[in-house]
């Protein structure tokens, strides 16, 4: 049980990478990237969790109560915003590729090589 959370984070990263490597569609690939990124949220929040801790919001609770780590939560918040923006950009690129080529299969985008 102690390791489950970290193991899940590692697994999500690996399976997301596999999906991205064999992806047939740039949109699909973008979603696989979000999966890889979600492994970092799971890792960060699991790291900062404390048994019997409450959320770090001092409304209605006493100062000095056992709370979970607020720093990892703020990092995860930043991370979520970054994820959305990067995915939006990659999707826009995928749309443009599709307009030019009629397909979004990354294996067929071979204009530059060698």
């Amino acid at each position, binding site marked *: 049980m102690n390791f489950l959370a970290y193991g899940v984070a590692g697994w999500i990263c690996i399976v997301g990478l596999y999906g991205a490597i064999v992806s047939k569609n740039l949109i699909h690939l973008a979603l696989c990237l979000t999966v890889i990124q979600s492994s970092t949220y799971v890792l960060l929040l699991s790291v900062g969790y404390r048994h019997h801790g409450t959320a770090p919001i001092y409304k209605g609770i006493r100062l000095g109560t056992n709370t979970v780590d607020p720093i990892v939560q703020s990092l995860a918040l930043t991370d979520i915003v*970054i994820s959305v923006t990067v995915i939006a*950009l990659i999707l826009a690129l995928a749309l443009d*590729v599709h307009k030019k080529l009629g397909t979004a299969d990354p294996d067929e*985008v071979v*204009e530059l090589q*060698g």
Partner: protein
Amino acid sequence: MTWLLPLPVAIPLLAAALVAAGDHVTPRIVQNAIAVLAPAAATGFSFWIMLETQHGLLIHWYGGWHPIGNLAIGIGFVGDSLGAGMAVLSCTLVTLALVYSLTYMRESSRLFDVLMLVFCGAMAGFSLTGDLFNMFVWFELMGVAAYALAGFKVEELGPLQGAVNFAITNTAGAYLILMGIGLLYARTGALNFAQIGHFLATHPSDRLVVVAFTLVLIGFLVKAAIVPFHWWLADAHAAAPAPVCVLFSGAMVELGLFAIARIYWTVFSGGLHAHQGDVRSLLVWIGVVTALVGAVMCFLQRHLKRLLAFSTIAHSGTMLVGIGLLGAKGLAGTANLILSHGFLKAGLFLAAGIVLLRLRDIDELRLHGAGRNLRWERALWFAAAIGLIGFPYVGVFVGHSLVDEEASGQGFAWVPPLLLVAEAVSAGAILRAGARVFLGWGPKRDPLLSWEPEESPPERSASVPLLLAVTTVTVAIGLVMSVIPGLQVRIENGAERFVDRSAYAARVLHAKSTPAPPHLPFAIEVAKPESWAYGIGAAVLAFAFAAAGLWYRRLPELVLGGIVRGLGPPVRALRAAHSGIIGDYLLWLTIGATVVGGAWAFSLR
């Protein structure tokens, strides 16, 4: 003087927002003025910071959150000589690129200016920050602006492919960095470089530290275009507009290397001290391989910008060797190399942009002899190419000789000759392309060189004298980097302070003032005889390779056949590996990460 530190970041970012906000109301000339003056101001302030850091580190705690009880609770910028130098380089290149774009990219909307300004602020922040997660934020900001700029010419497929490959590989690398940050935070409870470094140095290091180091290292190696993580660079550079290539090759790739040096010396050097030898051999090895692979691929290109892009990979490998030797002298060599290479490569990209503008093409063979009348462009091209060879007291010379000295001193005597060859091959390719385009030498066909798609030229209304003036200034700065009085000794002094982890931590966490540095002279260092030999040898070899590239078919049948049989298969395999397919690149990324991780799991334990 600590109030200076936020300015190189805040000014370009504010300017970006102002240009975007005023799009529908302010006249074009005001927008242009903001777009040029803001990075110029950022350059000026970075330069001021660099001068101030001669006397010691400058620290700015955002929001006034000074460390409490020697524990950092806020984000700090820590200006040191080398970091400030990176900021100066980045901001200067942005300024030059934006002046160049005033007429070169005239029809382009203000979106171009906005993204360039954001890019400028992100690079400055990345150079100056003293906090791990903050560095990640600037890394991503730099990335987002760069992906969009790489795909700027959306009408063509090439730029889109380049941008897609660039965005996806770098994003995957960024996630690895973030996992590494998560691991480090779990172990040390800190995000400040000095704080993490202090914790790791005072506690035993185990597998978690090794894995965290690997993840962070791989992420930055992707940005630094080191084999086998380099694939994206050539695709992105070949297709992006010339002023954007200037920033990619001149500053962004080097910032990846800078980050490796920064993270190693402030965070890991204490904890991994016992394994220093393993880290050193790994970094030197992949650096040498990168230099050779980049040089060979460079020699096989006919698309001028793609050729220059592979030359950047070759130089990036050399720079990684300088950092990977884990000595102050090698680091100083890399710093010098980054400055001179940055300006010279920028000059070459700008010259290639002018060639595209005036000759409406960017292909070496199709342009055979077409540039005979472009005297000024020809002079600039060859001057910059010779600067990149490392001829004594010209261009990259001092940087290379410092890296070579460090390598020999550390017992890596086999490294300098290989770097010499890599350098000569890549410079030879640039000379060959110049000779073919501007002099009309050599045959018009060459089956050796790979085909690349055409690129649509910019509008003819661009002001050529302005473009030439900017290019001339850029090349000139690059050429004199080895003979600026006092520069070398200052960089070496800066590098020595850069690698002193405990002094850094004492200044950042305990606000201890460092002893005043010695008064440094303004003199040009006299090069050692072996440096002379290397410089001249590189020049001879480079010209030999250029000639071979032009006239290799005149070689006797026996020799040529032997070369083809010996080098043919590996070169073909290398070329086929640059497939342009993102799935392959991601697979290479995992293979590279696994190999580096596996090597360390066995040696570092």
